[in-house]
């Protein structure tokens, strides 16, 4: 065995606790801000903010923006921007709504709520989103039209394509299986949620262990064991705590009674059931995990960050930066379509104004989450946390009773202030 004290590479400047834990100071700052925000709102609302019910709602409201924000990270990291995500979401939502209310029931003649409807609708939607995104990317990469212009045009085009497709009407109700992707209508229930929570915890701990082993195998410096242990405890606590909270939110008894009636049964007296993890949140978690792996462990991710850091260097290193741009925007388009599934399913219909202002929320989430507009820096978890902070701020203010105009004034100011703090922080630590 290698004696850790005689390793050739000794960490020299590991002074403080944060460095020992190898945690991102920026991430800690954001989590700190988020916690202060939550506790603040909780105090002002006499404990109504941090109830299982509100946390459940906050979570499902965040999903749609958070999914798109994770794609926006790649776009902004490569020094582009996408102003069309809300409009693209609307087009994908309209296409899916028409597929499940017109195409499958009437044109294919399968009727409403056919078992294949939801999957057909989602596949059509995802393909539409990916193709439109790839088309944007082609115009940016190969025709060298600035992304700002391409997506500003797309903002108008896709918003109105959605309008045209639906004649501006609200399309609904959507397919009953499809609506399970929205949140309240599709949850796992308590036992399955616990099982998933435990599996996720086990996977997280296994990942930690493996990365430590890989470092030791190459004799790289590793964190002290206590730090590794502390991190493991924090991660397990966070995952299981989250599951516990979502399980604690109980389905209203009248709703439960209706569910029993639908199955032709009678609800036993005093029966209660928690919601558990919503399917939409599982989708977000899957997106977050996949996008993080893409960002950190694939060539595609490496090239995205290299191109963001120095486009010329990337090109000279033999990276096909044009094709890369197409891929990035295609991913963005795919995620817009996925968000459209969640957003329209949550509303139970497609409305003409779905996704309005989402482009700004998504960009704000990515930027608050530490994605630098100058390119090269950004994390997926940061963007998702950014989306959560924005949503908490918005719904917290609504709960406190802040007037609607002031809500937007505050959100706008917070965005500017967050970027300013970020600039000061980067100057302090000497990063670009």
């Amino acid at each position: 065995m290698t004696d850790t004290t005689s390793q050739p590479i000794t960490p020299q400047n590991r002074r403080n606790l944060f460095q020992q834990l190898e945690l991102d100071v920026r991430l800690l700052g954001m989590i700190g801000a988020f916690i202060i925000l939550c506790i603040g709102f909780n105090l002002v609302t006499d404990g109504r903010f941090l109830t299982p019910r509100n946390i459940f709602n906050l979570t499902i409201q965040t999903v749609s923006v958070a999914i798109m924000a994770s794609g926006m990270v790649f776009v902004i990291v490569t020094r582009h921007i996408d102003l069309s995500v809300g409009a693209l979401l609307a087009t994908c939502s309209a296409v899916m709504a028409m597929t499940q209310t017109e195409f499958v029931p009437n044109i294919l003649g399968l009727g409403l709520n056919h078992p294949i409807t939801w999957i057909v609708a989602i596949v059509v939607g995802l393909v539409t989103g990916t193709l439109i995104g790839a088309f944007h990317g082609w115009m940016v990469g190969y025709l060298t039209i600035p992304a700002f212009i391409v997506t500003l045009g797309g903002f108008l085009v896709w918003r109105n394509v959605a309008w045209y497709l639906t004649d501006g009407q609200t399309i609904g109700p959507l397919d009953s299986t499809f609506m399970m992707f929205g949140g309240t209508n599709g949850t796992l229930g308590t036992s399955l949620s616990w099982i998933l929570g435990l599996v996720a915890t086990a996977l997280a701990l296994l990942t930690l262990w493996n990365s430590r082993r890989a470092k030791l195998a190459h004799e790289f410096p590793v964190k002290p064991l206590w730090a590794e242990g502390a991190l493991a405890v924090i991660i397990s606590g966070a995952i299981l705590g989250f599951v516990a909270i979502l399980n604690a939110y109980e389905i209203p008894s009248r709703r439960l009674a209706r569910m029993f009636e639908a199955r032709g049964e009678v609800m036993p007296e005093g029966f209660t059931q928690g919601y558990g993890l919503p399917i939409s949140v599982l989708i977000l978690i899957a997106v977050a995990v996949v996008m993080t792996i893409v960002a950190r462990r694939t060539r595609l991710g490496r090239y995205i960050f290299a191109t963001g850091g120095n486009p010329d260097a990337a090109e000279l290193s033999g990276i096909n930066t044009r094709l890369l741009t197409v891929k990035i925007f295609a991913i963005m388009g795919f995620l817009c379509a996925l968000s459209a599934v969640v957003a329209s399913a949550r509303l139970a219909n497609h409305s003409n104004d779905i996704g309005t202002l989402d482009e700004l929320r998504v960009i704000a989430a990515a930027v608050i989450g530490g994605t630098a507009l100058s390119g090269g820096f950004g994390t997926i978890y940061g963007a998702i946390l950014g989306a959560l902070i924005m949503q908490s701020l918005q719904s917290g203010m609504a709960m406190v009773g802040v007037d609607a105009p002031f809500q937007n004034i505050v959100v706008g100011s917070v965005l500017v202030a967050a970027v300013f703090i970020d600039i000061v922080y980067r100057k302090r630590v000497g990063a670009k």
Partner: protein
Amino acid sequence: MTTPKELRASGATPMVEMNNISISFGGIKAVDDVSVDLHPGEVVGLLGHNGAGKSTLIKVLSGAYKMDSGEIRINGNKVEITNPRDARSHNIETIYQTLALADNLDAASNLFLGREIVTATGLVNDAAMEAECRKIMGRLNPNFRKFNEPVSALSGGQRQSVAIARAVYFNAKILIMDEPTAALGPHETQMVAELIQQLKAQGIGIFLIDHDVHAVMELCDRASVMKNGQLVGTVDIDDVTDDDLLSMIILGKKPGEAAA
């Protein structure tokens, strides 16, 4: 061992021949019918004022620019180089004036950029790349320590050693160095000079673009001088003085011509 000079005298096929290369941008001939060649273990200096066309000429070889006319031969065989990937496939590596590093990535990521080591599942193998990076940096620049920081945190010399490591690691046969010492202090410049000698001894052919006549006199076997996109001439360093080279650069005349 045969010296590059003997190789040339014996009429051996050069490793690189760039024949009658022309390239123009918006009607201006940046490179006008220029021919240069390079033998194994030889350092050929490319000299000239800013805008003389030396960087443009060499970017044709590294695949960054496409030539309008002319041909490139590697070991006597005509090749097509239309992008940096083509150049790399002929073992041509370039160290750019601007270093061409992604500042936000660490040394290992830059070293392997475009040619990452991947695991069996196709994921990037950072640990293996860092290990390889530590190995080669140990050879090139033993004082290098900052393996886990973005290269923006490195000094000019450290960045240069990352750029050079990239060329050396992938077994370059033909190395293009575009003002490799422009951003460096005296000590680091000396380090690069020693490295060039080391690479030369391994039989690598080097095109060295430089402003500094003294550096060229010290490091190169031959020098090709350009002015206004045209080749003034190629001379053997042993046959000329600093002043001869300077007058070629400034007046655009080969030694002897001025006197005649």
